[in-house]
């Protein structure tokens, strides 16, 4: 019995080594990024080992999650997709009904042991659903398909925005939209849709919460409210700008160490990074992100079917949205929204949901086309 188990274990490990179901370059990029995240967190948290240990444990958990999910073939994922999507939308409705209110927004679902945000699930189930819908359809998508996909995106995104959680709503709708974009939607259709969306902006402004409007206003003129809403933007820019080309050096960022920079372990951790490692560090990390996204798109191109392609591509491209929104926010270019810097910001939910996505990518990689 034990011998048999041992034999199976040895065989499993050997197979993992000889024919890995994960993409080594992508895994390498992610591990490198996670390491940068831990190093930055060490400095940003002032050497708080409990935080670093927790984050490292989450990365390990996430790694195991990647391994496990990579064993699930995409075809099986595709079969589950409608149910997963319907389930996560249901949970969103439950949150809207009985969710727990934390700091003014209703995002959390308390399951007794753990509490989590169902909106995080949508970050993955949304592109899955769009890919599932477009998979059997004639591509490029027709207006009818576009409208259906638009509905699929709008309903959960609207629920999330209502919580209110603009950052997640943005990420979720971006993931869906990227799938639509990658499916080959005609340029003129994209153009006219963007025009419509552009025309809707003033209407959307009307529906924004006052605090969200203030964030936009503050972005336009942070010095108008230097101690209130502008404080984040000003202090973050000071941190970034004072870093210069080569940075102040690891653990020498005064803005975060002396608490001038708010949220310096979570949303604004990239300001700490920029302050301590300078423009050189920023370019390095941007190259790393570009590499990871490029690798995702390469995996997508190599994928066996439409569903896999669209899913992998959408996951990779929404990774960019994280980087762009967070990086832009830290640099005072975009309003303050709760989007973390992927794998650098401290926090469990985003790390786990991100790595789940990469698990799906690994699965798609493992089931790629067989080249002649």
């Amino acid at each position, binding site marked *: 019995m034990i011998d048999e188990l041992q034999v199976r274990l040895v065989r499993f490990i050997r197979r993992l080594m000889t024919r890995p179901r994960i993409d080594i370059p992508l895994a390498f990029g992610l591990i490198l990024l996670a390491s940068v995240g831990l190093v930055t967190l060490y400095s940003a948290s002032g050497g708080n080992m409990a935080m670093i240990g927790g984050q490292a444990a989450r990365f390990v958990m996430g790694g195991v999650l990647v391994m496990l999910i990579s064993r699930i073939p995409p075809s099986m994922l595709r079969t589950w997709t409608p149910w997963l999507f319907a389930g996560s939308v249901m949970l969103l409705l439950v949150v809207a009904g009985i969710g727990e209110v934390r700091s003014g927004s209703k995002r959390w679902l308390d399951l007794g042991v753990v509490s989590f945000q169902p909106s995080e699930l949508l970050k993955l189930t949304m592109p899955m659903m769009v890919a599932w819908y477009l998979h059997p359809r004639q591509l490029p998508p027709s207006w009818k398909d576009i409208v259906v996909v638009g509905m699929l995106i709008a309903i959960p995104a609207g629920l999330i925005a209502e919580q209110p959680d603009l950052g997640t709503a943005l990420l979720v709708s971006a993931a869906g939209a990227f799938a639509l974009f990658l499916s*080959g939607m005609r340029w003129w259709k994209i153009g006219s849709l963007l025009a419509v969306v552009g025309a809707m902006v003033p209407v959307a402004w009307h529906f924004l919460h006052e605090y969200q409007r203030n964030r936009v206003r503050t972005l336009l003129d942070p010095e108008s409210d230097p101690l209130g809403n502008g404080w984040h933007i000003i202090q973050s*820019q000071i941190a970034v700008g004072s870093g210069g080309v080569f940075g102040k050096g690891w653990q020498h960022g005064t803005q975060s160490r*002396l608490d001038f920079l708010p949220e310096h372990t979570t949303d604004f951790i990239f300001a700490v990074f920029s302050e301590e490692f300078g*423009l050189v560090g920023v370019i390095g990390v941007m190259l790393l992100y570009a590499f990871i996204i490029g690798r995702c*798109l390469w995996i997508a*191109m190599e994928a066996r079917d*439409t569903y896999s392609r669209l899913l992998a*591509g959408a996951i990779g491209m929404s990774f960019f949205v994280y980087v762009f929104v967070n*990086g832009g926010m830290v*640099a005072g270019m975009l309003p303050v929204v709760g989007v973390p810097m992927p794998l650098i910001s401290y926090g469990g939910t985003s790390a786990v949901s991100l790595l789940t996505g990469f698990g799906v990518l690994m699965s798609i990689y493992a089931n790629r086309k067989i080249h002649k």
Partner: protein
Amino acid sequence: MALRRRSIKNTRGEATLFRVRAMVGFALILLGLGVLVVRYHYLQVQRHDEFALRSENNRVKPRAIPPARGLIFDRSGVLLADNVPAFRLEVVPEQVKDLPAMLAAIREVVPLDDSDIDAFKKQLKQNRRFDSVPLKLHLTEDEIARFAINRWRFPGLDVVPYLTRRYPYGPLFAHVVGYVSRIDADDLTRLDADRYKGTSHVGRSGLERSYEDVLHGEPGYELVEVNADNRVQRVLETHAPTPGKNLYLNIDVRVQKAATDAFQGRPGSAVAIDPRNGQVLAMVSVPSFDPNLFVNGISKADYTGYMNAEDKPLLNRALKSAYPPGSTVKPFLALGGLELGIRRPEDTVLSTGEFCIPGQQRCYRDDTRGGDGTVNMVRAIEKSTNTYFYRLALDMGIDRLASWMGSLGFGKKTGIDLLGEAEGILPSREWKATRSKFPWFQGETIIAGIGQGYWTVTALQLAHATATFAGHGTPYAPRLVMATAVVKEHPVPLPNPPSGPSVIRKPHEWEVVNQGMEAVITGGTAKGQFTGFPFVVAGKSGTAERFSRRTNDYDNNKNLAYLATRHRAWFIAYTPAEAPRIAVVAMLESGAWGASDAGPIVRKVMEAWLASTGGPVPPTNTLENVPATPSSTPELPEDTPVATPADMSAMPADSTSTAPPDDGGNP
């Protein structure tokens, strides 16, 4: 249906389409990341200097360290103004949730005046939220103990040590040294904000005010690293403050004490000046007040007490009160007669008891009924013969009289190193023209000849004139401060060159007037007042009437108490007559006769001065703690160089022994 759709689905075409889209997408993503990099480049390279500065300003805050105020010593190094540690209650406003409630609650623990609250609220507006603001200064031990028990109720409040000013001699030097008090809102607009950062007190009166610049010193600062809550993390660098300079007065505390005691509480003033250099050896105004009460905010009761007191203890009579000088100006007038060539010493005048202007009804009296007979200049000074001086004034005319007296310093500031000096009035045609529609009358010239009428002088002015005369005409601006000393260094004398050329051209003329003034002491109005004094004294009494005569009848009431209500008593004198070293003026606001009432005060000042210089002690001297020299011969005691603090070597080498270390310490 689904099958049919699938059959027409172009899988290969889709893959190609996807490939293109993925590449376009990736290109857009690279573009997006590129935009980010450009933005970071903009912040980190182009605007780096600006943000680096702002980051540094965030982090590093300068904090002022107030300097320790200079100490004030008397001539021989006795401490007159000291810095002593005390405790005050301070509030950090940002740590107090409900300020009005806190103020209401703390009053039950530590009693607060409304003035405390007012000062606190004023300073509150001028300070940053995280800077502590003093709420009450100079806590008593009882208050500290009560606060300690209740401390938990008052977050943001703390008892903090600081240095406060103390005047060990209290009222004795109140009018000279003055006092410091808390900086108020008006001061903040007047003072250099950078120099006074962190300083809580400023010189308010007396030398504390006049020498504020010298005493204050230069603040230091330290650069501290603060966090976003402005909590100090560590001190980066410290620049020690420069403590204020110490002052050494010309006054000897023993002379000052003797002069004050001589008044026995009667309102008046006395000033003693060294004719050789203008050093003020004593300056007294009676009654006085306790300057210590003002330092940390005087209570309302104390203040109204001082303000309502009939004898005005807060008034510096020596400096600010001007009264008619009476007969004390006669020697100066006589000298003027000689200098202007109007009189020769041997010219005589017949005094019959009454002097009438030729062709007018109005007559002016001598003090003695029937007059002093035929008097020359010396005798006229000795007997204070009014008629002699009526005529002299008349012959001189008001213009020359005013000009001559002006050259002796009357009618203008003496230039003493103390602010707030009164000018008095030296009457002249011009002066009257600005105040009256009437022209100058001859009668006014006549009464000016005996120091009456419009003419008013301060005791300081008269002392200055007496000293100028005693010093053979060379004027010196009176100086209270002899030297200043940088902490731990030897005092450096302040130069005091003559303020002008001698007003006496021929030494012989001086001798004549001096002879008259010596005669005042030996056989004149002050006969017997200086019996037994080891040196020759020359002087002049003055009894100025406080009210005009209404009838031509002689007032036969000789009751001294009655006369005191009608007269001001003056006495001026200097000694030794052959080479004067001290000139003294005493004024009693209500004295019957100049010689008998003010004269003894002058004598006591001179005796104390003599004792302080180590000279022979006259038999009547009752001063304690004065080492008597065995020698009984009235020889001139050896004097230390006039412009150097005496007993300097006897002074503690470290003049800040009671002061804090150099870095200040006033938190």
